[in-house]
């Protein structure tokens, strides 16, 4: 089985490492992205970036930035999904995207009845969904549906806050009686929870929704479960935050870490031609969002190389949870969990190197290249 390639042709691991180190040595601005790996892989990716002066981002950080930006602009109420599942007696689902991208998690939270809390346990769980498709995928659940197009959600949230604050209202996307129904639903929560997809609402919409939840907490208890289309991007953002101080989109090539959510976004680096070398890490289930780019690339992937333009150097790597033990971000837990080689259920562990091992070897090879020069 081939495990490394140079310009699309099978190569030994040693030759490929040497070729990759050579490319990094010549690069003026490397980008380390994709970042679809376990925590050990993230750690070595950041170590490599420090070593070679790289910019670091995750291929799907667009999916988490609306939440990150809203949170750091104005704060948030956040609930653990498992706690909301046991406690929330009123659940409001805002928009369609949460169910589209995180349907399993949403259904897991809303199924069953609350069993914690005097105020919540006695009542049957109420579910209300505001959106254009009427939460069609919540089959079987007793859902009150309020029709509202995606473009109107932010207006509706603003009106709702105004209504709850007792302000006079102008005309909005839903009739005043509908608005009153939503307000009544929320006000009667023992412990309420709002489920939404930050990506759908954008930064301002997310801020508006978190503001609504903050308002509701003046009288009763409320929290939120944001549904992120690409949870591992959030895990990578958390790792980046403790390692570099910032949630991805960082440049580790300067004396102090620089963070710029626009400039150091992988998409901008690639499409704008800011980078001349991409080190692309892709070792998780599914596919990452890889923008087209003319930059030279080094690819670490757990899938066989696809036909088409071959990267300058490619490595086959193991997949955490299938081929080796590791730590991944788990949205149901809202934190990191250990995974073991067997938990993927796809058979025996492989001999392929992990992302962490391969990047460690690559970083060591950089030292060898530097010494030889």
């Amino acid at each position, binding site marked *: 089985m081939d495990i490394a390639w140079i310009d699309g042709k099978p190569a030994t691991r040693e030759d490929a490492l040497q070729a990759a180190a050579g490319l990094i040595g010549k690069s003026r601005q490397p980008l380390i992205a994709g970042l679809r790996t376990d925590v050990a892989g993230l750690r070595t990716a950041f170590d490599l970036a420090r070593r070679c002066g790289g910019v670091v981002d995750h291929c799907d950080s667009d999916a988490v930035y609306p939440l990150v930006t809203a*949170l750091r602009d104005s704060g948030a109420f*956040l609930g653990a999904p498992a706690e909301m599942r046991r406690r929330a007696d009123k659940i409001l689902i805002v928009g369609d995207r949460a169910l589209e991208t995180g349907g399993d998690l949403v259904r897991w939270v809303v199924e069953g009845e609350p069993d914690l*809390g005097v105020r919540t346990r006695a009542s049957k769980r109420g579910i209300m969904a505001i959106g254009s498709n009427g939460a069609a995928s919540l089959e079987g659940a007793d859902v009150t549906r309020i029709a509202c197009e995606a473009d109107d959600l932010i207006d509706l949230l603003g009106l709702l806050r105004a209504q709850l604050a007792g302000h006079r209202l102008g005309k909005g996307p839903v009739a005043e009686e509908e608005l009153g129904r939503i307000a009544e639903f929320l006000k009667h929560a023992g412990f309420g929870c709002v489920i939404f997809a930050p990506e759908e609402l954008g930064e301002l919409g997310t801020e508006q929704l978190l503001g609504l939840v903050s308002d509701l907490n003046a009288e009763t*208890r409320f929290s939120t479960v944001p549904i992120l289309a690409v949870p591992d991007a959030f895990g990578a953002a958390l790792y980046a935050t*403790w390692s570099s*101080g910032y949630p991805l989109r960082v440049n580790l090539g300067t004396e102090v870490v620089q963070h710029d959510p626009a400039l150091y976004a992988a998409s901008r680096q690639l499409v704008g031609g800011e980078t001349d070398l991409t080190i692309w890490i892709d070792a998780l289930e599914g596919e990452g969002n890889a923008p087209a780019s003319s930059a030279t690339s080094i690819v670490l992937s757990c899938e066989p190389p696809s036909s088409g333009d071959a990267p300058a150097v490619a490595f086959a790597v193991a997949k955490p949870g299938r081929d080796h033990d590791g730590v991944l971000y788990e949205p149901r837990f809202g934190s990191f969990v250990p995974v073991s080689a067997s938990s993927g259920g796809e058979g025996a562990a492989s001999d392929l190197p992990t992302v962490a091992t391969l990047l460690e070897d690559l970083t060591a090879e950089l030292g060898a290249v530097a010494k030889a020069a």
Partner: protein
Amino acid sequence: MLTRLKNGHVVDPANDRDAVGDLFVKDGVVVAPPPSGTAADEEIDCSGLVVMAGAIDIHSHIAGGHVNTARLLLPEYHQAFQARPGLTSLSKVGWTTEETGLRYAEMGFTTVVEPAMAPTAALHAHLELADTPIIDKATLVVLGNDDLLMTMIREGESESAIADYVAWTVSSSRALGVKCINAGGSAAFKENVRKFDFDDVVPDYGVSSRQIVKTLQKAVGDLGIPHPLHVHCNNLGVPGDSSDSIEATIRAAEGDPLHLAHIQFYGYGTEGKRRFSSRGQQLAELVNAAPEVTVDIGQVMFGQTVTISSDELRQFAGRGQASPKKSVIFDHEANGGGVVPMNYKEKSFFNALQWAIGLELFLLIENPAQVFFTTDHPNGAPFTTYPDIFALLMDRGVRQRWLDALPKAVAKMTTLGEIEREYTLNEIATMTRAAPARLLGTTDRGHLGEGAVADIAIYRPGEDKTAMFGKAAYVLKDGELVVKDGSVVKRRYGRALTLRPEADKAMKSRLDRYFDEKYGIPARWLEVPEHAIGRTDPFKVVPCRS
């Protein structure tokens, strides 16, 4: 390799040593002086320098979900957490695990305890600690607002069953002790209760804060966990109610060991026209009269910081004072918590009095082995302010200069100006080395006797205590020179100190069922396997007392 630390002023209160002499280190530990004539492989001239064991911080929020949220929330205020060159653009420097390890080491701290690890965030906390260089780390795991413990108390389950649950939690999460934060208060807040006292009862469970604290205190003692139950009392920061709560908790110790955290935040009365006054003296007297109780201070210092706490009720109440005006409140399983930025202003009567109350407590609690040196980092102030606090404790003149700069009304409300006590080096070493090691049960450190790990801090003494403690002349970690002239010269990774008490097998099966049936999550998600840490030999097990 034999290293000789030559001719230093060795201050080692655990071994009654306070004199000039040599110290020998071999293979990472302190050894007896070799026979005369044996040449050392390495010699560090410590003439004129002060030699102490590496310092131990028993309560500093350095890792975990809430700490990381604080980083996430405040990209613009990362400068609160570190000293840096004046010309550096402040907005571009992060407050990271890396900086945490380096800055601590530069001050001669070699062991730091993260005191608020939720069982559900144990792996996250340990992953951050594994990325924190040089220092050894430990954690306290948080119980006391969790459904299972309160249910067990309500159902009248046996003390041994409860101890088994505590043992499983400590062991799975790789903790060094147990902390209880506003016992029952966070759970009550989920029921929309907005004020919770020591004898109030958590709705639905029918158990009081007192019952929870006493139950956990008993379990911790029965399991032989060396560190007594670490308690964050009810009503933190509330004038009057805070001091009532801590008084009730101290009295509830009833002769058994109990540690009370950041007590400065409970030294508040309601006297005066602003309804805010110092109860520092009364609180110090209570502590002096209760030798079974240990405390740490949570000193406030001026400047921007952020409060990080699993006391969700308190953080919710405090969010109105957030500066800048944003906060994150978590409703997690059990405790939850909150992150609220805070700017303590020298010109504010309230903040200035908080500063004075902390120092009153430091100086009026007589036994330096009973009171521990903390700012509750970053809640009272970032740990980078420690050198200034050492100076305030050791020099009355420095205190007076700070006091003179405060609003005049403050001087009338504090006895600080009249307190003459100045901490000696020996007392500083007791408070930051010998006593913390005893409190945590980590007998291999905190002293310089034979067999101690060679975690050693060497300082250049002088009139300016801030300079002395800000930049250690040398620091050895496990015998290796890691800091010279206040700068890190060698990066390495320390370990996490943990207990591994055995839980009954039946408890393990019960918890597998409990987490699966009640929360829909596997119990193994709360366990921290060694492979997950990704460092060689990441843990060091500290024995429980038999």
